[in-house]
């Protein structure tokens, strides 16, 4: 396996972008990533694009052809990657394997979702297809509902409180204040979260990530090309990917995402690092409970202790291990297919020393992207 580096990044602002369509978002991110890498469109050899559902959100499939077409990458091989909310992270992993294998030297990884062209009801239905539509959604399980089932059990088993869940949202909103691309620039309090509308007990509106339009792209290069083209390459030191049952109810332990445990193990092993050596992480906080489960499953804190750990400030910027300095899915926004790629962009900004006020002074960074309620998990470790 060859070494692989990130040499370029580009993303759009995240938000409810009524004026923008899927292709214009993708082009902005893709072209900015290519420019940032100091290369030309014609240097790009292959494209991997993560998107959850062009079909349900904008009635457009075959994005494997459409994205390189609009970005100006002529005749290149291009793969659309789908793993629900982990589509972006998985596109990154596929591109990494491609470059590491020696097949290509320069790849663009894109992630995009245009969610707001349809109504809230249709969005909820589209997101529910990340679960087992026949055996979960059909019986009344919404996507927030599945995470609520985990949250309720975590509270029951480990005495986690609703305020501890809320502390995840408060922290991530605070971090997003310093991220110009974030959807929200609004400080919130524990009380704001507690007072927000209940969506699925114990989860409330401010426990959930928002509906977002946006795109993110990065350029990957082989070691030889990266050293030639970039003064600030960020190396991918570890990559892991695992799956689990699509239905939450089919798991022996409802409070462990074994796909995350397994993907993390692969990434740690390859990077020769342990959880205690990780300087910061961008984790999949589609709901506040998801961040708590993530920091347990990634090994940053013992199972059941994440609520207290977060409440006491260990995951803030400047804390023991900063989690989601970008604002996370919660406050930066969650354009489904773009999220996994945007996590990698935050890792690169942090390791290049370009994160501004939200800098964590990190030597390495971990990203963690989950599909559905844990049916797919992708973990990457970056180092400067």
């Amino acid at each position, binding site marked *: 396996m060859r070494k692989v580096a990130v040499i370029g990044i580009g993303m759009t602002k995240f938000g409810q972008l009524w004026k923008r369509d899927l292709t214009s978002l993708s082009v902005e991110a893709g072209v900015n990533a290519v420019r940032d890498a100091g290369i030309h469109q014609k240097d790009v050899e292959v494209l991997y694009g993560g998107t959850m559902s062009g079909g349900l959100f904008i009635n457009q499939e075959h994005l494997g052809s459409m994205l390189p077409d609009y970005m100006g990458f002529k005749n290149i091989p291009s793969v659309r990657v789908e793993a629900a909310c982990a589509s972006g992270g998985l596109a990154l992993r596929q591109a990494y394997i491609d470059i590491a294998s020696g097949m290509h030297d320069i790849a663009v990884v894109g992630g995009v979702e245009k969610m707001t062209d349809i*109504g809230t*009801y*249709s969005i*909820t*239905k589209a997101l529910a297809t990340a679960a087992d539509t*026949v*055996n*979960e959604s*059909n*019986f*009344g*399980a*919404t996507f*927030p*509902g599945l995470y*609520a*089932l*985990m*949250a*309720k*059990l975590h509270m*029951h088993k480990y005495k986690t409180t609703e305020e501890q869940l809320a502390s995840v949202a408060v922290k991530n909103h605070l971090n997003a204040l310093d991220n110009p691309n974030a959807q929200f620039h609004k400080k919130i309090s524990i009380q704001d979260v507690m007072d927000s*509308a*209940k*969506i*699925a*007990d*114990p*989860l409330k509106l401010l426990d959930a990530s928002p509906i977002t339009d946006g795109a993110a792209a990065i350029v990957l290069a082989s070691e030889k090309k990266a050293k030639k083209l970039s003064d600030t390459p960020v190396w991918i030191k570890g990559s892991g990917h695992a799956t689990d049952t699509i*239905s*939450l*109810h*089919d798991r022996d332990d*409802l409070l462990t995402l074994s796909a995350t445990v397994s993907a993390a193990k692969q990434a740690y092993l390859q990077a020769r690092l342990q959880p205690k050596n990780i300087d910061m992480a961008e984790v999949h906080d589609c709901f506040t409970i998801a961040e708590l489960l993530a920091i347990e499953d990634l090994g940053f804190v013992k199972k059941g202790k994440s609520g207290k750990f977060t409440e006491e400030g260990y995951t803030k910027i400047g804390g023991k291990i900063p989690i989601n300095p970008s604002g996370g899915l919660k406050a930066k926004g969650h354009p489904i297919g773009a999220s996994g790629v945007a996590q990698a962009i935050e890792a690169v900004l942090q390791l290049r020393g370009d994160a501004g006020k939200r800098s964590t002074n990190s030597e390495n960074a971990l990203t963690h992207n989950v599909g559905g309620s844990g049916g797919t998990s992708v973990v990457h470790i970056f180092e400067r």
Partner: protein
Amino acid sequence: MAVPKIWRKIPEYYNLIGKLCPECNAKFFPKRTVCKNCGCTRMQDYKFEGKGKIVTYTIIRTSMSDPEQEINEQAARNIPYALAIIKLKEGPMLTAQIIDCGDSELNIGKKVKKVFRKILENGPSGVIQYGYKFKIDK
């Protein structure tokens, strides 16, 4: 769901017919044609009694109803509604609504039993889906 998609699920949805592995005795609901434990493909039908316990639950409060959509979920679900993961006595777990029950009765560990109910109503096509919901087993 489309009519054939509903029709072929009738044994499972109406009568909780799952599968039993003759090799390792593992029981599955819904049906699986390959045993997840041992890879056996000679799976046999197995009827679950429909009794179990609440493993975890939530109350869904976001509306899934939209008059322009094909499926009228509001009619079948009566938002807000309780949703639970239930561990059947025989082992497997499933996701289902809990009905006829006050918030105070709803607890982790509570015994429940299956009832036969309407689960969804497909708007314009007029197809009504029946299946399982659960009640507190007093």
